[in-house]
């Protein structure tokens, strides 16, 4: 088991690290280079279903194998274990020890950190058990299925000093960190509204073996209230985190509605939701998600007095874009083999023509992926340094709390505020 430092020491360092990171707004400096101290970080993966396997591959793809070792995996579904072992084999990694229960894993093997990628309802007790055992935790978002469990996870982190990182991977994306930095520096002026959506056209189901119908809830846990809040916890939480991050605030209230409109297949979670979160300065976060149309896909529009950003597509739209000289555009087009109208004769921009303006990229050197690989590396780096930026956990915590309050708003049909006991 990795040696634990004193809680007070840890917290002191965490707060300092947090302040610095919050100022820089980039938790990892977007680098995959690790500090090498000659000692491998021992990792365990708890939950190696679809997401867990993806996280394994992403980690194995990084050129940092001398810095860590995945020594164990844990899952209670044999097909997932088998698939994970294939990945170890594919990457030529030593066969990990296998456990069916995380308690046994924690008791029997020395670990520095675990990656928790189980269904949502299991996040809390597994993460809490690990932190209590002195193991640092990277837990997939959202944090937990209930408000109390979410708070309990946070409290355990404070009590034990173990790192708790929540898998909001966009915090580790170059596009997002750069965009948020620009927003905080006033690029968009005053933000009046954030609109976001995540639209898909599928039933969101995984296949259940025909001879084992009793596995339905185990496999399709996202569709059942006991295990997940569906679109809210699995999709919206990503985008609510971005809104909170961009605004540097947490909501003050949420209203919402939802329904099972299209997929009337026995599921319990809504396939169609719409919510409005209000912030202290009057900004609104307007959100919707559905499972029966994919035309508009996934997007976050951040709308300010000086411009708008569409973060998923790395686009910035100024309210007063500089007029591109027509001849310059023509020359650029020729060089890029583009044939389109060059606009000449204009003296000023007018907003009514914004539909013709194709915007600008937020950053030009995007990284591959959505930040998840960097998140994994960051976690290992934090374990090596024995400290993590506290603001990232607070982002995850507040997002999870307000995601679940959104569920309450939908269920009650009323405007919901946050009970004081969940404020940190």
């Amino acid at each position, binding site marked *: 088991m990795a040696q634990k430092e004193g809680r007070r020491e840890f917290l002191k360092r965490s707060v300092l690290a947090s302040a610095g990171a919050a100022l820089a707004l980039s938790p990892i400096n977007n680098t995959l280079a690790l500090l090498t101290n000659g000692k491998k970080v021992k990792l365990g993966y708890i939950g190696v279903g679809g997401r867990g396997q993806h996280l394994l591959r992403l980690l194995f793809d990084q050129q940092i194998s001398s810095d860590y070792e995945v020594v164990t995996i844990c899952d209670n579904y044999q097909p997932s274990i088998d698939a994970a072992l294939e990945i170890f084999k594919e990457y030529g990694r030593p066969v990990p020890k296998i456990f069916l229960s995380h308690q046994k894993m924690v008791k029997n093997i020395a670990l520095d950190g675990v990656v928790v990628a189980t269904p949502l309802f299991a996040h809390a007790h597994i993460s809490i058990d690990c932190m209590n055992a002195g193991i640092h935790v990277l837990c997939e978002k959202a944090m937990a299925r209930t408000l109390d469990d979410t708070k309990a996870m946070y409290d355990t982190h404070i009590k034990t000093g173990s790192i708790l990182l929540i898998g909001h991977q966009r915090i580790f994306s170059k596009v997002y960190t750069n965009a948020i930095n620009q927003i905080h520096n006033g690029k968009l002026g005053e933000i009046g509204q954030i609109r976001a959506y995540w639209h898909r056209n599928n039933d969101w189901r995984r296949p259940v073996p025909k001879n084992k119908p009793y596995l339905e809830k185990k496999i399709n846990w996202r569709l059942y209230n006991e295990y997940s809040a569906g679109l809210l916890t699995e999709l919206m939480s990503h985008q609510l985190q971005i809104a909170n991050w961009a605004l540097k605030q947490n909501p003050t209230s949420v209203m919402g509605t939802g329904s099972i409109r299209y997929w009337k297949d026995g599921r319990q979670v809504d396939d169609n939701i719409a919510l409005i979160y209000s912030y202290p300065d009057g900004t609104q976060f307007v959100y919707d998600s559905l499972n029966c149309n994919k035309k508009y896909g996934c997007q976050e529009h951040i709308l300010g007095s000086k411009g708008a950003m569409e973060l998923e597509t790395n686009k910035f739209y100024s309210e007063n874009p500089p007029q591109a000289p027509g001849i310059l555009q023509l020359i650029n087009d020729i060089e890029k083999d583009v*044939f389109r109208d060059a606009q*000449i004769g204009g003296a000023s921009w007018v907003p009514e023509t914004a539909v013709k303006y194709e915007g600008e990229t937020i950053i030009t050197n995007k990284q591959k992926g959505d930040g998840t690989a960097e998140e994994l590396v960051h976690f290992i780096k934090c374990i090596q340094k024995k400290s993590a930026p506290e603001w990232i956990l607070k982002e995850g915590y507040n997002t999870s709390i307000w995601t679940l309050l959104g569920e309450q708003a939908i269920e009650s049909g009323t405007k919901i505020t946050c009970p004081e006991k969940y404020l940190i």
Partner: protein
Amino acid sequence: MKNFYHSSHFAMNTRLDIILWGCEESYYAQVDNKIHTTIKALELIYSRFDNKSELYKLNDTAYNNYTKLSNTLLKSINQCLEYSVKTTGYFNIGFLNNQGMELHDLIEVRSHSNTIKYLYPNVKLDFGGIGKGIALKHIELILNAYNIENAIISFGESSVLTRGKHPHGSYWPFSFQDQHNFGESLKLNNHMVSISGLHNNTPHIINPESGKLVSDSRAVCIVNNDPIAAEVLSTALIAAPQNLHQQIIKSFTQEKVLYSKS
């Protein structure tokens, strides 16, 4: 892209862009050089601001004094007198401080002796509304002489001569970007486009009748195949009241007259 040439110069108080494609760069450099030296020579005739220019000196000495002038300048002034008539006085290179008077009221030209006399002390000739058209007419001859098939020659994106086609299409694609919308697309081959109106939101055309700067937010775009006529017509339409536009337009040959919305 191979065999693509672009250069830009500051000329005639604006940016001159030269775009050519299809031949070797070294050949285009010769064309560019020829254009550049030709414009320099024209500026020494037509510039109102260059104290070495013929016009500058003329403006200084021609009041009440028959003054000799070059064939080139004489020809241009006579051409401007014709255009003044065609535009019912709204194209006027001598409007400075002479409210309501047409060009032939301001000057007396004796072509047989290549002389001119200004009839009032405050008369100054200004080729700002036609000079780029004259330059593009000369450039057109250069392009012909060098067998240039595909070209864009642009003075400040408001006086644009096109030849041939875009490397990736069958024409040069432009759209008239006015104050309120992007207007319709222009499919140009061997054309001239002249746009007059506000320049960077600053009025710069004087109504010869009122003597005041035209502050209307309209812009007008002329498409034809005559650089000089296009420049004259776009300038005159900005200065003239709308009820005279059709009458003026009928005096010219053009393919398109586009307006911005006011």
